């Protein structure tokens, strides 16, 4: 598991390229210039492919219902129907769904930050018999798809009466092996000598965790927090299986039911979709760097 744990800062634009362009003059200026133009062309096409669906989603959310499927496609509606964004709150329970989703996402994120980083300290810096074996078990379950054990999990949850309560989702999401893994990888980059010195100075293990490790691991905590928040916000299957009561629905469940109920209201469906994505977009744009670092860490395991 000894991998380089320095995270490349992928979010900054000026990366040193690993394959530098040919030194000027070696092959004549024409070929690199051609490659450059081709590069931009491919980049432009790929960017269009990636972003057009989002663009169409937003523009359709501002169309009249009959305008969504106009021929030819309208990319910018002539008279934006801002009223759609008022209408959707009136005819759906959007507010309840959003409240439920925010509650679940925040609670799950806090719990996971605590249990994940706490356990990660145990795996990275403390010693106890069976530590490495237990960590292997954690890693192993990351490879087991949740779909494979959702049935026994559901049986257990219903035996203890947690189904159809928000607690089922919280219990489900708050103890992920992924969080432990991500935090442990980061703690491994913090030198042991630091903890040793603190021990000599009489700090307890808990003191080291709270006063040294936590403050030093803010970037990793931010990555885990953002990834967890987004995962919980976007989760569809968990709520689908456990939250049957409409009062408990999350935005994803609500949106899906809205689509089935108003399946001909294409413009409003797009309005709802945009509203469900906006909070995630904001979180993502603010914390971009941490997302990228979190993904890079979880991918860089050796």
């Amino acid at each position, binding site marked *: 598991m000894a991998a380089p744990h320095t995270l490349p800062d992928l979010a900054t634009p000026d990366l040193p390229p690993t394959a530098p362009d040919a030194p000027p003059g070696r092959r004549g200026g024409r070929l690199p210039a051609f490659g450059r133009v081709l*590069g931009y062309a491919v980049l432009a096409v790929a960017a269009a492919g990636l972003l057009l669906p989002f663009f169409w989603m937003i523009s359709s959310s501002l169309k009249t219902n009959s305008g969504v499927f106009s021929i030819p496609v309208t990319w910018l509606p002539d008279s934006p129907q801002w009223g759609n964004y008022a209408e959707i709150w009136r005819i759906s329970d959007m507010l309840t769904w959003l409240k439920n989703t925010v509650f679940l996402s925040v609670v799950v994120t806090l719990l996971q930050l605590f249990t994940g980083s706490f356990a990660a300290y145990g795996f990275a810096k403390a010693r106890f018999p069976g530590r490495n074996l237990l960590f292997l078990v954690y890693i192993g379950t990351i490879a087991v798809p949740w779909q494979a054990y959702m049935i026994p999990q559901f049986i257990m949850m219903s035996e203890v009466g947690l189904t159809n309560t928000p607690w089922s989702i919280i219990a489900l999401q708050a103890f992920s092996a992924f969080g432990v893994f991500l935090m442990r990888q980061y703690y491994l980059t913090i030198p042991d000598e630091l903890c040793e010195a603190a021990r000599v100075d009489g700090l307890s*293990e808990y003191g080291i965790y709270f006063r040294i490790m936590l403050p030093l691991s803010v970037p990793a905590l931010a990555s885990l927090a953002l990834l967890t928040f987004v995962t919980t916000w976007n989760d569809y299957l968990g709520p689908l299986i456990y939250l049957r009561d409409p009062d408990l629905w999350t935005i994803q469940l609500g949106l899906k039911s809205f*689509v089935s109920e108003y399946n001909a209201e294409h413009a409003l469906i797009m309005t709802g979709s945009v509203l469900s994505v906006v909070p995630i977009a904001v979180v993502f744009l603010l914390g971009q760097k941490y997302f990228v670092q979190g993904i890079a860490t979880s991918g860089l395991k050796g």
Partner: protein
Amino acid sequence: MSTTTVGGPPGTGADRAKRWYRARRSLQGVSFVLPNFLGFGLLTLGPVVALFYVSFTNWNVFGKAKWIGLDNFTRLLGDSSFHRALLNTLYYSAFHIPLTLAVSLGLALLLNRKLRGVAFFRTAAFFPYITSIVAIAIAWNLLFSRDAGPINQVLGLFGVDDPPGWTASSDWAMPAVIIVGVWREMGYYMLLFLAGLQTVPPELHEAARIDGANAWQRFRNVTLPCLRPTTFFVTVMLTIGSFKVFDLILVMTNGGPGQSTLVLSQYIYQKGLVENRFGYASAISVVLFALCMAVTVVQFAVNRRRNA
């Protein structure tokens, strides 16, 4: 490391203090892991183990579980819906894995150069991955509409007179789902490849260039071998991800039209949580579990042999 003799005469005071100190550290170590392990053990490890037991019973919603041995599995052999789900899962994987690999690696190579707008593009490419499946599936479903959907209109501009019906047609529903799957995940794997590309030493490229290797040769003989750990990890993740594909299909096509996009995970859901046949659904889960494990083990073995 000095070891204290166990079972010998009572050690000196220093010995005892050391043993006490070590026991206390172990206990503290355990206390760190415990809060997470309680949840993890109960909600992940427990169900994984229980899965195998339940798959040998006829447990249903009334909570009556009778041991029926291999009955669930023999019934699976003759269950045509199960066969369909298995084949569809393999169909999805056979296209989703190589396509995503190729596209994400291509994008990573493109972004690993000094071009303007690269930082913006990196952000854009990652966005589909963090957007909820529900919103994405709804938008793509409308984009894929047969008659006036933007995609078919664009195809019409290119002279396609008889555009496919996409999610409304049993032949084209799976390709539609695969397209959206690749579109959604390529940004994520692109980031992993980008991180991997940072580990390729520039000197190697320089040396190869001086030896007269062209761009393709450098890619084949320098970049790809250096990327092998990343490629391996990405392939394992992609394979598991494809085998368990579920929510995308559930929201986009709900397995239809007919059973043309029914996949294993969805069949588990249908049998277990809609029809409440826990035992039978667990047997299907065991198959999914075994598939993922088998492929992962094979991939690890192949990877080890290549590295040897």
